[in-house]
């Protein structure tokens, strides 16, 4: 249903084109692409395995570093991550298509027979320690998987009726399909040792105190469920939507034709959510879609590639406009009034719109009371820096946090997955201090461009990393 409207923006490789593309990889020593990947996937190794027909091994390389390698292959802003670092990008302006190759390898793997997909990784025997993971988004799922592998009994609390977080409710339908996301989640949970508690929210259904007493450690992977307000007149009338909530509707509806789509839409914001909603509205049939950002184009957090994608889809990007008020009439929204922020500061202009979408960022949604005790910083949960003694640990010992709800990453799926993985190790380290030398981290970790996060963090594990 979704697929027909939201066609695949970047068509996949087939086994032939994948081989040809794989042959472009130089198999670099100390490959810069690995440094650029937040989860430090050993990219040259998995590409080489595609070349020599070891697709299961390629999936192993990818999924051991990043359990959501399939989703990340589709949603990562590769143009600012691995692709930007590839020596072929430096040398000839055309990176190896790492994202497409990763997608090929993971797709092939997940399409394989169950005897091949199951048992890719083996769980260590249970040692009796229990961890509560709160939030079933990429951070929570990644941590649960790694903790299960390390022999923990994991209980995963999720407020909604499905796990997946923004994979399920936020990512653009022209990048992922719900079936694909679901297949990946099923595989992650299939590792075993993860007890799922759906419709069970921290704050309402279960308290932090009880989790603390019942479990050896708690991981908060709550994401950013709340929305910011513009704080301008006319914001609360019908026809004004919160972009991420609308995207959620698009992703969850079974009758796409029933979604209200106006003729002209104005999107307020400058990040990838603004780009996503704008393109999705175009796919849904909106005649004119204009993104209005308050600063200059270079300041937008949406990458050049994303902006190009939007423009190709027919979206107009208008910069240096700050919304002042939303005008309405009897039938709802009629226009948005903006004030210029560039050299014509103060000048005002109006854009006609039947619908207005706010894409100005998310906030932490959990009951402030619950979180007060553990400490906030800049609206996010405050945790120990990876370089410090208690990485990812909050002010309360034994309570960890990661993903979008802390302020250390770039709010990407891939960073959330990495946080989850590192938190699992941090928990393991704190509970088995004396035996940390025995921890098997898989491949050794090279330093990372987010050196702040991993390099110094892993310094504490140097014995294990050899």
């Amino acid at each position, binding site marked *: 249903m979704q697929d027909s409207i939201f066609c695949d923006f970047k068509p996949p490789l087939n086994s032939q084109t994948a*081989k040809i593309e794989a*042959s472009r990889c130089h198999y*670099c020593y100390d*490959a810069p692409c690995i440094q650029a990947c937040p989860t430090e996937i050993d990219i040259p190794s998995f590409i080489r395995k595609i*070349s020599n027909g070891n697709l299961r091994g390629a999936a192993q390389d990818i999924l051991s570093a990043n359990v959501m390698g399939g989703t990340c292959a589709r949603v990562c802003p590769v143009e600012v991550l691995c692709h930007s670092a590839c020596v072929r990008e430096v040398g000839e302006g055309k990176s190896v298509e790492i994202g497409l190759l990763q997608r090929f390898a993971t797709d092939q793997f997940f399409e394989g027979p169950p005897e091949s997909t199951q048992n890719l990784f083996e769980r260590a025997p249970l040692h009796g320690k229990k961890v509560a993971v709160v939030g079933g988004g990429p951070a929570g799922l990644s941590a649960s998987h790694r903790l299960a592998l390390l022999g923990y009994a994991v209980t995963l609390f999720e407020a909604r009726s499905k796990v997946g977080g923004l994979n399920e409710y936020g990512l653009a339908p022209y990048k992922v399909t719900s079936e694909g996301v679901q297949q990946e989640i099923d595989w992650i949970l299939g590792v075993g040792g993860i007890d799922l508690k759906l419709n069970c929210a921290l704050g309402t259904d279960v308290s932090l105190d009880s989790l603390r007493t019942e479990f050896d450690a708690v991981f908060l992977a709550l994401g950013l469920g709340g929305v910011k307000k513009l704080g301008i007149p006319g914001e609360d009338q019908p026809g004004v939507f919160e972009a991420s909530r609308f995207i959620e509707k698009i992703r969850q509806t079974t009758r796409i034709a029933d979604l209200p789509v106006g003729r002209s839409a104005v999107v307020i914001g400058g990040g990838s959510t603004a780009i996503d909603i704008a393109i999705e509205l175009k796919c849904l049939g909106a005649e004119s879609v204009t993104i209005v950002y308050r600063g200059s184009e270079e300041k937008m957090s949406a990458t050049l590639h994303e902006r190009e994608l939007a423009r190709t889809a027919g979206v107009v990007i208008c910069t240096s406009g700050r919304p002042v008020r939303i005008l309405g009439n009897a039938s709802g929204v009629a226009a948005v009034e903006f004030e210029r922020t560039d050299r014509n500061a103060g000048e005002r202009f109006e854009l006609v719109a039947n619908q207005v979408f706010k894409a100005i960022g998310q906030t932490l949604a959990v009951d402030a009371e619950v979180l007060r005790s553990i400490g906030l910083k800049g609206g996010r949960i405050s945790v120990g820096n990876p370089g410090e003694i208690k990485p990812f640990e909050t002010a309360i010992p034994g309570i960890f946090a990661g993903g979008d709800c802390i302020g250390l990453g770039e709010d990407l799926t891939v960073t959330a997955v990495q946080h989850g993985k590192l938190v699992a190790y941090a928990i393991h380290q704190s509970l088995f201090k004396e035996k940390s030398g025995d921890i098997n981290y898989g491949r050794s970790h090279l330093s990372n461009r987010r050196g702040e996060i991993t390099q110094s963090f892993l310094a504490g594990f140097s014995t294990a990393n050899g």
Partner: protein
Amino acid sequence: MKSPNPFWLASAPPTDKQINVERAFRAGWGGAVWKTLGEDPPVVNVCSRYGAAEWNGQKLMGFNNIELITDRPLDVNLAEFKEVKRAWPDRALILSLMVPCQEESWKSILKKIEDTGADGIELNLGCPHGMSERGMGAAVGQVPEYVEQITRWCKNYTRMPVFVKLTPNITDIRLPARAAKKGGADALSLINTINSIIGVDLDRMSPTPHVGGKGTHGGYCGPAVKPISLNMVAEIARDPETRGMPISGIGGISDWRDAAEFLALGSQGVQICTAAMHYGFKIIGDLTNGLSNWMDTQGYRHLEDFVGKALPNVVHWHDLDLNFKTVAKIDQTQCIHCGLCYVACEDTSHQSISVRREESGSSKIRRSIYEVKESECVGCNLCALVCPVECISMVQQETGIGYLPWSRHPQNPKFKYGGNLTEKVKDAPYKGPKSQG
């Protein structure tokens, strides 16, 4: 023997019938050696027949076949051959032959081909599979005495020029070459295919190509065999006993440069099979155009201007200058920081490249900078060979000391034992065929 250009099609499926050979001549090929003829009844071929070694997405890097000689009746082949020769008098058209190792067999087939108008015959003493088990092809080509004997029979029973096509499935290629010369051969063609199993089908657990789940060794050719053939051509061209004999170079020739290399090592012309089977006859345009443009830029007006020109520089290892020195130099402006030179040298060579992470730089990714430690570098070329952007050059060093071959090197044991060891290492002399009959 004349042909409009030095590019001939080798005896193989591309020269199997009138229709192919005429298409090839229309495309511009200078000559062709007809697919090998034998005695009637014709052989029967199996299905399947070919296998290939693919490398890094490149098809037919090596090619292998278990096909036999022509599977069509002799008179059909000869009738077609005659027609082609009549229609294309300016092209070189050679008949390739393979019959049992008996004087009568050779005599009788030579008689049958007398009036075909062929420009010459080529004795297929090289096919390594199928025919060799029947006592033909490589089975005779591996025994210098037989080579000499068959060549002599042919010289006795025909006045056409005789090419002897050699098998590479032998330790020292000079021995059958010398034998062919002794037998009176006018020219040598080499190489035929190399004995091989191209691969194993791991599902069927059978060699490939498979015939109902079973396979057999076949003949290997294509780009992968070129180095083997180049060496054999040079060996024969340098051998005092065969020096000056016309050579038709064969094996892995795919473009004009390959051909020029064969010519530089002493071939007068070349034959091609796999490249044509891969891309069709059209490649002749690329071959002739490439060769003639290269000759123009080099100032060569005739092939003779450079045929054999590299031969004086093919020397014995003992004669190489031990004082010659180069060191690798990395052009930092071209370097893409892949690190392949570093890891190759560090892991498998002489630990002569240093690595350091770039200190600053606007990018968040810290690149590694690779530099050659000149004093450690032995000038082996490995780094330059693995560099994907060819930014490493081998720079000659001024040592200030003169030519020093092994024979005069102080570490040469001859100084320890007093004798001249290198002089004792002589080629085993070839004594000619055993007594005849």
